[in-house]
């Protein structure tokens, strides 16, 4: 039985950039991560978005489970000739990206404004 979908992302268009804000403080639960992934992939696969800026300003905690979706989104956009940029990541969460060396693969900037300038 399907559950009513709770909004986990706020999506806004600024010029030709799709800005996506995570609404949850914690990105942990596998079902949530799956739904977040589905919503993000839909932006590329069905809505044809090519410049996506993710902002993590609200996110206080996330685990490795969410990283797989970010990598997949990055791959999808790269293959389609687009670009993914991450912004507003707290120092604690940034450490996860640094330790896993995903900061070398993904484009990560300080805040949304810098993100908008990086496309």
């Amino acid at each position, binding site marked *: 039985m399907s559950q009513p979908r709770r909004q986990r992302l706020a999506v806004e268009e600024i010029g030709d950039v799709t800005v996506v804000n995570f609404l949850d403080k914690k990105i*942990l*639960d596998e079902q949530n991560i799956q739904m977040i992934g589905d919503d993000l992939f839909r932006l590329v696969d069905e809505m044809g978005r090519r410049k996506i800026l993710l902002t993590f300003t609200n996110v206080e*905690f996330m*685990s490795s489970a969410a990283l797989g979706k970010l*990598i997949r989104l990055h791959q999808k956009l790269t293959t389609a000739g687009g670009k993914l940029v991450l912004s507003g990541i707290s120092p604690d969460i940034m450490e996860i990206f640094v330790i*896993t060396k*995903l900061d070398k*693969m993904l484009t990560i900037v300080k805040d949304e404004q810098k993100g908008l300038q990086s496309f």
Partner: protein
Amino acid sequence: MTDRAIAADVIVPSDLAEARRLQDEIEVGLQAKRYGDRDLFAIKLAVEEALVNAMKHGNQLDPAKRVRVAYSISERAFEIRIEDEGPGFNPTDVPDPTLPENWERTCGRGVHIIKSFMTDVTYHGRGNVVSMSKLRNGSPE
């Protein structure tokens, strides 16, 4: 003043909601012992990764299989032992997730994060038991 550790030894079903409940309990204990925010984040993250590994990869989320969790929180260090009923694994077989050729693989990142954020991590038995500890680094501002 005595340093009486906060300690628990519990057996829980392979249910991720139980993992969250345990994490909340541990967080309350760490705050009671006045661990700093960075220690809190590191310990919560390592416990999350280890419990998900035990319940999902070890016990395959089989509700009949249990996870035993024993932890203690002293003024000096946090220690935890997590045992699942799965077949175990050899941590040296896990591909290094930091190598570019493995970036797209989904496995191994949790184990790497645990090692990086904790002071000491040891796998026992057939690889279905992990003991880990973190020395306290600071107190709240």
